[in-house]
């Protein structure tokens, strides 16, 4: 007993106990709120629980990357929405990365004109609300492109205000597709190896690319055909998707530009002089000295932007892109289960954002440490 009390006295210091108390209060508080919430829902005869996810959805979704029909469940519809969100976020992430690289190149090699236009671009993007960017881009696609009956056609490719329609090759029962897939895979490996290593494998890339071209152009396709109101067949990239992706990429690009500019401007002048004193060319300096170092400075800020665009895709509801929020709202109107719907949305976005930052920590954590 004596030992115990002495142990407690020695260890029960405010700074040790406080975090524990705060933790217990926080968890207890959250539990209390939820218990109370569900008690209230029950006492008011409001349906609760996640059983609604297995009900039939009963509504169509315009833009789907995985198979979906209205007879499938609400849970499936939400997954379709989630995939839409992820596809749009990924496309935007790729685009803003490309904007970042271009800006870096222009700042390093572009001279006064390039620098001035980058400045104007940043003014234009950062000083206009993202919502207006979206509406403007959407109206460009909607008003600027002709309706299907007057669509632009370039070979089998069709462009109208119903979207960009690409031909899909006819199915050859799996084996042929497998062979093409393998060829494409070999091509990717060849490309990446030849960039790293010798250029002697160029012929492999050329052959793979031409193989793909033949597949897409020469073979008969279930190509888009104008029938009634719309083109039938083909693979459609909707104007809603394009508007969302381009608007968010254009907008976020302004922020990415500032990140890259900051990193380049804070690059130690001594290294620049040192590199030129050693006789390195501008290109060599840029690729061998600057890029490896500023990538480490830029990475954390870029991850922030990747997380931001993932969340910002929820604005897709403005331009009619059926992202997770849009699908969830339609389901909510049918089931009325607002608490569960919102909780699911919160949990999903939290998971995506945490996963993105976790993955990037694993990727860049080491380099940032080494950089520091």
């Amino acid at each position, binding site marked *: 007993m004596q030992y115990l009390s002495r142990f407690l006295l020695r260890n029960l210091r405010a700074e040790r106990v406080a975090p524990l108390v705060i933790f217990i*209060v926080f968890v207890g508080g959250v539990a209390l709120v939820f218990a109370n919430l569900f008690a209230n829902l029950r006492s008011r005869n409001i349906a609760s629980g996640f059983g609604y996810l297995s009900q039939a959805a009963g509504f169509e979704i315009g833009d789907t990357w995985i198979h979906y029909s209205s007879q499938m469940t609400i849970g499936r519809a939400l997954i379709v929405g989630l995939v839409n969100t992820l596809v749009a976020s990924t496309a935007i992430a790729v685009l803003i990365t490309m904007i970042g690289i271009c800006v870096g190149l222009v700042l390093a090699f572009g001279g006064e004109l390039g620098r001035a236009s980058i400045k104007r671009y940043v003014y234009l993007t950062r000083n206009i609300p993202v919502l207006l960017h979206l509406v403007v881009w959407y109206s460009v696609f909607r008003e600027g492109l002709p309706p299907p009956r007057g669509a632009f056609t370039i070979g089998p490719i069709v462009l109208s205000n*119903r979207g960009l329609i690409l031909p899909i090759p006819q199915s050859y029962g799996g084996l042929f597709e497998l062979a093409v897939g393998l060829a494409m895979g070999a091509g990717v490996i060849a490309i990446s190896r030849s960039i790293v290593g010798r250029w002697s494998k160029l012929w492999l890339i050329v052959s793979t690319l031409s193989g793909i071209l033949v597949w897409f152009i020469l073979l008969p396709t279930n190509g888009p055909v104008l029938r009634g109101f719309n083109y*039938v067949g083909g693979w459609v990239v909707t104007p809603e998707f394009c508007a969302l992706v381009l608007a968010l990429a254009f907008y976020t690009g302004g922020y990415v530009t500032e990140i890259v500019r900051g990193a380049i401007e804070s690059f130690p002048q001594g290294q620049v002089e040192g590199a030129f004193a050693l006789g390195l060319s501008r290109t060599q300096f840029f690729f061998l000295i600057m890029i490896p170092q500023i990538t480490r400075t830029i990475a954390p800020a870029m991850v922030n932007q990747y997380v931001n665009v993932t969340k910002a895709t929820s604005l897709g509801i403005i331009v*009619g892109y059926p992202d997770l929020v849009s699908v969830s709202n339609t389901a909510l*109107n049918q089931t*009325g289960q607002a608490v569960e719907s919102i909780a699911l949305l919160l949990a999903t976005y939290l998971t995506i954002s945490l996963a993105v930052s976790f993955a990037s920590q694993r990727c860049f954590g080491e380099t940032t440490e080494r950089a520091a």
Partner: protein
Amino acid sequence: MRVFAIALALVTACLVTDAKAESTLSAVRERGVLNCGVTSALLGFSAPDAQGVFRGMDADMCRAIATAVFGDPGKVRFVTTSPTQRFVALQSGTIDVLIYTVTQNFSRDTGLGLIFANTYFYDGQGFIVSKKLNVKSAKELEGASVCLQPASDAAPGATDYFRRNGIQFKAVMIEAIQEVVSALNAGRCDVYTTDVTGLASIKARSFQSPDDWIILPEIISKSPFAPMVRQGDDQWLTLVRWVENAIIDADELGVDSRTIKDASVATNNPEVRRMRGLEGEAGKAFGLPNDWPAQVVAAIGNYSELYDRNLSALGLPRGPNRSWREGGLIFAPSFR
């Protein structure tokens, strides 16, 4: 630690307090104003006019309830909500009654902890297309791009209809009605579908040349609109129902906003006398003055006045919203 325990207990007590304990009617009277949940942008049902005053059938229903409670149609605060937030607003007590062209159906009646009062308007889902497309029937819409609003009944309604008829379509889900109108004008969608009154409303107000647009003859669903209140407050539900009944009965009894208080009209009709508070005790159950039905009709008018004032501008036939005596569906139990 003791202080902390007391604080925790207090917080618990606050959280657990049940808003249901209080009756809606007494809460409204205490507050001095009725919080009425409406839409902000549906011409004919609820939309602000040039002076910012809410006009329309839903808005006038709100005024009718306020008149019954306070004797003053002005004592209503219009709380504009959205299709996704409207039920939560009522469940949480932000509004006392929801009059938002809500379509009655089974899942809403059973799953939300809310209950419908009486139907005040019979609508149905239809389609609007440009005349340029030369479409005469919804059956010809094979392959069309259909504009829909994500949180509406129209989305499952259209899906059901097209599936029944074996028609393929492409859904374009756009939330804001202004964007829907632009999408139709630009030809992004071939057709838009919602309740027929909604179609008539955007046709009259949103298109530059309304005559270029046609509402197709097919009505593909039943949309009976009714006010909603919370379950478990029977007194409030009864009041809302009888405010609606008073408006419909006045129409049947041949009295309107000008004649309801005119002692020389229909003096011998016991129902009119009851509405005027001369016989019976119409206000007793609610603690209201006995002439509250007459006040409601004097302030808002009877059903025909309500319809003509708000919906005749849409140019729709009155159809099922005629009195049952003229072959319509508008019917109310008598004020006896």
